């Protein structure tokens, strides 16, 4: 069979979509990569390097690498600022694409001599800058047929406004982990939003939005302990006098060699096992944070120059809409879930992992040829999203008969 005639549509140009596209193109399959925003790379293309005296294996630079691969690959055709409107399955998938009406992200708007424009994070973002009028010209409205579809539309970070007692948006120096990633990336080091100075006392609040029964978010986002600890390490490396506290419930592992990493970070950062209640503004843009630390036994408060909310991974804003368009079910947490609970044969492949509760309730209704990759189906870091995208590409190719 001539692979050249096979075509896969991928929704979402984050690290999962990029990786899936790249792996498919390696096997001579052509790809239509549809990205809703004006820039490829998803959340992770704006992340900062978290190296101290050593690389901390955060994976941010591998996103840069993958973007470079993809933009130089002729088999991958990119549609920026485009969304899916309709999907019909006959022998193939018939897809209607439409221009997205997404606005330019506030956080990326820069004042250039030529006017205001949203700035890409990577040199491989093409274009590098997008103005409002450029934006209106971008996007594809067309019909496409594809042999398979991979949905890699990612996640939405938890909206910190839902935790109103933390005053995000009200107090300038309360920021999210995502803001922190972008600030260090753009400045080369951490500066406070209110005055552009390096903060001395920094607090991280973990599990903001995740592991929260009251919100019904019964999952750990997996990435926020690693990113918070790594960034805390970076901040401390850059400014050894910085005094950093992390408020937490449980610390999750960051990957390989975690015990040594954790031991080292514990020497540099104070860990307090409690989740703060609220935050009040102080003079000089300082912040007062109230908590019930177990060790203290009674309510206490402490002041900080900057507070970072470690927001977690929530289902992508579009997952409901995408579920309607594609027919892929969402699981009880709201993530897209197309896991085909296939044949009895899989029961023989018993892993060392103890049986885990199945989260997908409607998997039987899944449509052949439709796949989900990356954080669209649940929390994962960059490395895990890449591995999952590779695996998904493998499954898609198997479905296409390109591989067996």
């Amino acid at each position, binding site marked *: 069979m001539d692979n050249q005639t096979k075509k896969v549509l991928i929704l979402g140009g984050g690290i999962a979509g990029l990786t899936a596209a790249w792996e498919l193109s390696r096997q001579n399959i052509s790809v239509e990569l549809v990205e809703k925003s004006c820039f490829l790379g998803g959340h992770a293309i704006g992340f900062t390097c978290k190296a101290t005296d050593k690389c901390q294996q955060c994976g941010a630079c591998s996103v840069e690498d993958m973007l470079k691969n993809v933009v130089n690959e002729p088999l991958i055709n990119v549609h920026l600022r485009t969304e899916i409107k309709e999907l019909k399955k006959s022998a193939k998938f018939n897809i209607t694409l439409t221009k997205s009406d997404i606005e330019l992200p506030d956080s990326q708007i820069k004042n250039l001599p030529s006017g205001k424009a949203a700035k890409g994070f990577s040199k491989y973002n093409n274009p590098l800058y997008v103005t409002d009028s450029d934006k209106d010209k971008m996007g594809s409205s067309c019909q496409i047929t594809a042999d398979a579809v991979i949905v890699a539309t990612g996640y939405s970070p938890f909206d910190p406004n839902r935790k109103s007692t933390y005053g995000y948006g009200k107090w300038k120096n309360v920021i999210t982990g995502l803001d922190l990633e972008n600030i260090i990336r753009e400045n080369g080091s951490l500066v406070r939003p209110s005055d552009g100075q390096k903060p001395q006392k920094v607090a991280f609040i973990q599990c903001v939005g995740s592991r929260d029964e009251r919100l019904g978010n019964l999952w750990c986002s*997996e990435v926020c302990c690693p990113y918070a600890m790594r960034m805390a390490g970076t901040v401390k490396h850059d400014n050894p006098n910085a005094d950093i506290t992390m408020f937490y419930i449980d610390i*999750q*592992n960051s990957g390989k060699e975690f015990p040594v990493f954790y031991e080292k970070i514990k020497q540099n950062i104070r860990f307090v096992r409690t989740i703060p209640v609220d935050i009040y503004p102080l003079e000089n843009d300082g912040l007062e944070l109230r908590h019930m630390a177990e060790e203290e036994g009674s309510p206490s408060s402490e002041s900080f120059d900057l507070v970072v909310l470690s927001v977690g991974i929530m289902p992508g804003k579009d997952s409901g809409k995408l579920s309607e368009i594609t027919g892929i079910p969402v699981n009880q947490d709201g993530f897209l879930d197309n896991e085909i609970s296939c044949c009895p044969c899989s029961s023989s492949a018993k892993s060392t992992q103890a049986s885990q509760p199945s989260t997908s309730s409607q998997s039987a209704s899944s449509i052949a040829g439709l796949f989900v990759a990356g954080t669209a189906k649940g929390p994962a870091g960059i490395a895990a999203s890449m591995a999952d995208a590779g695996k998904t590409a493998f499954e898609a190719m198997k479905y296409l008969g390109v591989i067996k």
Partner: protein
Amino acid sequence: MTTDKCTNVIEKCIDLKGSENCDDANMVDISISKDVLVIGAGSFGLEAAGKIAAQGYSVSVIGVKTACARQSGCSSEMLETGKVNIMQDVAIDSLAGVTGDFRAVLIKTAGNGTGCNETGCSEKVEKVFGAIVVAPQYSYSPLNKKYGLTLNDKVVSQSQFEAMLGDSESQKKILNSNNGNGSTVAFLTGFAQEGDPTLTSRVLTSALAVQNMENCNAYIYAGNVKVGAKGLERLFTQGRHAGVVCFKPSQMPTIEQTSTVEQDGNCDHKQVSETIKITIKDPVVRTDVELTPDYIVVEEALVVGQQNLDIASTLRIDADLYGFLPSNNVHRFPAKSNRDGIFVVNNSADAANTALKLKELIGNGIKKVAANKAKVDEDRCVICLTCYRSCPHGAIFWQNGAAAISQVACQGCGICASECPMDAIQIGDFTDDSLRTSIKDAVVSAKDNQKDGQPLIVAFCCKNSAFEACEAATQFGHEMPQGFRMVKVPCAGKVDVEFIMKAFVEGADGVMVAACHEGNCKAERGNIYAKWRVNEIQKRLEKMGLEKNRLIFTTIASNMAKEFAGKVNAFAAAIQ
């Protein structure tokens, strides 16, 4: 330090060397064996084997105990294709050759992991493989000693307890522990080691099972509850709702295990009664909380084992600090090792990714590769082995009485070329001559643009990191001194002493060697070689009475444009 605008600066990061040449004329066809060796016959090894065989390659699986023998992991799909040859009790004895043409010596083991027993050693067979997949098989070991506990029928490991839960006789015992009044079971996790979600998932599953047994109660003592995997927070919540109590003391609980032996006249009939008491300090109430459970379930550690270490050293692939494969380097994830053509499979996603990468590598058995990634001048080579030892990708072999480089395995990093005492190796895209020209051009071009009073800086930039950051800094218009120029190198490990000195001789005021962060080098150790060389030259400069701070070594990631500009500006300010 100021410059006007990006337009003037744009030239700075232009790759002075020119692009990499991969037009067809420079390509060669190399044949790659379509046989694949899978080391490790656990379920993931077999899953990988099945997926690889399905691509039409012939797979040999070796391992001491195969998952097939344990009646799990052999999919019918795999056996049907007939392309998987499972060789029980076979190990790898040695490995020579390179990617596409590995020569593995296999040996029948005597069940003890080595080829020998009292009666002698078994025969060795050499086989050729295009690629190798390692699927490490780890074992678990209980950590009772760290808690000061002795295992017995009341104090058990997690695996033992799982077995008990699966066995109806033992279940009855648990149910009837206190004269039919059920049992209290305490799980200890995360004090003797950090633990991980896989272990947590086992603890939570067992605890919930206990809690659901009549009159039974489960307590979990945890350092950190590792819920960072799919479904675990939900499981944890479910357990708590069912009544599982979880304590998270800041320190390892104090545990007393006292056994009293009662002799009852009959010598064979010892009555051992044991009490176990766990004490923690409750942080809120600030009093001691005591529990005397009927069973204690102790956490287990994943053990690498000598066998895996031997495999890694035989294959010459790097492990992480703890001996787990592969090394801790983002560029290896998923499934790659430092040697192209040797893969590591630790889970199901790795198996699929490996199958894809293998298909890309082996294809139909013929691979087109650049012909001149790196070349040895046979007449110069004195077989000193330096290149063989220093090549991070295991790309060097021996041919016609000289070193030879596999064009498949070579990544063109140039470390061997810089280390070779005879200067016998040249890198295709970065020959010594072309690098000398680049240095000269860089200085000339910097002089032309340099502003009065500003230093002339030459930065050797690794193409994987600093070069990318430098180009991005230029494109985004981050200000850098006008007299700054960079020279692109394939890896900082290719920055020879000679090149650094040449930059100074040509007229640079400052020289910067910019590499990947330690642990992020695609050539594993290129940055470390570069750092050594810079240190050496700094010493030399000092001896010559020159300022050693005119030469610096720095590390940077490819995505950090602003940080790169900051480093250049700081360097310029320092040497001005």
